[in-house]
């Protein structure tokens, strides 16, 4: 499991210091979906990037992130490179638009396998097709190019890339915000299914509370960089304690028509 303790991230720009994350503590478990829900802003993404060591140079992070017994926040870049992508993988909102446009999607997955795991060419091609199958794209998709796919299909390719090295944890930062409602449902169901089948741990970061509650086991609510409430999804939705959580749940109730008209 990944334990984050008292993580603080501060951005030092020319004008001023911005504290994006303030002493956040959260646990991400295997075989479970952990959600962080908060308004659009830098805090949630900064947290994810701290885990992977991908913060920009003007950001400083303090605190501890324990993974497999050691603190990866203060680990050297070489160590982080080893587990980035292989043990802990990332899917972001804009990833589907960052697929290489001139290489077929199957080849992109196979290339990742060859370079990171050292798989041989033919095996990599076979594994790539299997991965595409796992995310629900049939065999005809391996030779297609990104521009020939719809948004949902591209995001599935991104997920296939992310799980290609069989990571222990998958971090997803607003993976479905740019997709329409039906595709969003498909992707979220896919992710939930993968967690149950492979025992992978999923950290889902989103601003959409109903979405988070439909698939998560535990929810942490983030407000202005602080984690204001954490708990099992059921409990958060039925009896929220913190005022901000209450606001979110209320708004979600209104939006989904429960307790409305």
């Amino acid at each position, binding site marked *: 499991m990944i334990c984050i303790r008292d993580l603080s991230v501060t951005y030092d720009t020319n004008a001023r210091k911005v504290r994006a994350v303030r002493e956040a503590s959260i646990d991400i478990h295997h075989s479970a979906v952990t959600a962080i829900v908060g308004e659009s802003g830098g805090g949630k993404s900064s947290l994810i990037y701290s885990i992977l060591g991908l913060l920009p140079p003007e950001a400083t992070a303090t605190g501890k992130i324990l993974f497999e017994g050691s603190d990866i926040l203060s680990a050297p870049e070489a160590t982080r490179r080893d587990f980035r992508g292989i043990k802990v993988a990332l899917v972001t909102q804009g990833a589907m638009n960052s697929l290489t446009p001139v290489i077929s999607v199957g080849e992109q997955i196979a290339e990742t396998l060859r370079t990171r795991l050292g798989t041989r060419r033919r095996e990599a091609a076979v594994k790539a097709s299997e991965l595409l199958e796992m995310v*629900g794209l049939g065999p005809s998709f391996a030779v297609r190019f990104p521009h020939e796919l719809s948004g949902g299909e591209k995001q599935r390719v991104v997920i296939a890339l992310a799980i290609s090295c069989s990571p222990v944890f998958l971090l997803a930062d607003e993976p479905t915000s740019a997709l329409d409602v*039906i595709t969003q449902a498909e992707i979220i169901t896919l992710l939930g299914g993968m967690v149950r089948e492979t025992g992978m741990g999923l950290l889902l970061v989103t601003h959409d509370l*109903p979405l988070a509650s439909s698939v998560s086991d535990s929810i942490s609510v983030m407000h202005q960089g602080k984690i204001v409430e954490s708990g099992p999804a059921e409990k958060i939705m039925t009896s929220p304690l913190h005022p901000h959580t209450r606001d979110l749940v209320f708004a979600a109730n209104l939006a*989904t028509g*429960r307790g409305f008209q």
Partner: protein
Amino acid sequence: MRSPLLVAQKITVSFGSARSQVQALAGTDLEIFPGESLAIVGESGSGKTTLLRACLGLTAISGGYASLFGKDLSLCSRGELVFLRRRSGYVPQDPFGCVPPTLSALDAVSEPMLIADSPGKKRASERAGELLVECGLADREIWKERVRFSLSGGQRQRVSIARALALDPELLLADEPASMQDAATRKGIMEILRKRCEKGMGLVMATHDLLLASASASRVMVLYRGHVVETGPSKDLLSTPAHPYTRALGAALPGMGHSPQILVRRTDSLSGKTGCVFSARCPRRTEKCSTPPFLIQIGAGRTVACWNPGG
């Protein structure tokens, strides 16, 4: 007998060269009376933005007829079009590009008034302030801020709504007016628009969010790839959807604590070249669906274009 603010009949819009045509809208009908609100629901690519723009004459119509305030758009001169557009408001989809970036929030809202020379200069500033307050930007500090640099996405969107309301339009066409807002504030925006409807403004709103649509408008029209698949009162469409696509939309919404359901087939291609556009993904498709369906009345104010509707 009230006269309709907007009438659209069989509007067709096609883009592209002679070789490859893309039909963005195929034969859509629309009618709005004062005080009415209509939500056009559809995913990206469904044609909802095109429909809004066609109703304002901003996009050329390849077929059909549209009239604003009783005037046929295709017969209007440039000057007449300007007058018609001043009586209507348009909130474009992208709040980043639609407010002039070099202006402050207050200037951006007062600009249409100054161009139309409607109230005088001094009064325009006051009115702009009132509109900004109405749209939820009561903090005067924000008014002087330059829109491009200092405002958040949500604030920019509110400024563009206030700008559209500047000339007190009788009809407002809004394209995803709450897309940049957090869940908590989305309702607030729709309240602003609803209050105006109560005062007699007509509202046509395009959105991908079926829930938001039904909470904000009295009638809903569902578009799928340029075709109208269902229309009706919003509550009915949410509770008892007739068209399989509407049903899928409602089921896919993440409810409180239950998983979203997926009621469409997965398909490699989205082509519905012959027959119903939705047939490739439709779970209820039959042989009849290879002939394109047309809108049929199935209840009070409800129409659906399906050979095999459910519900």
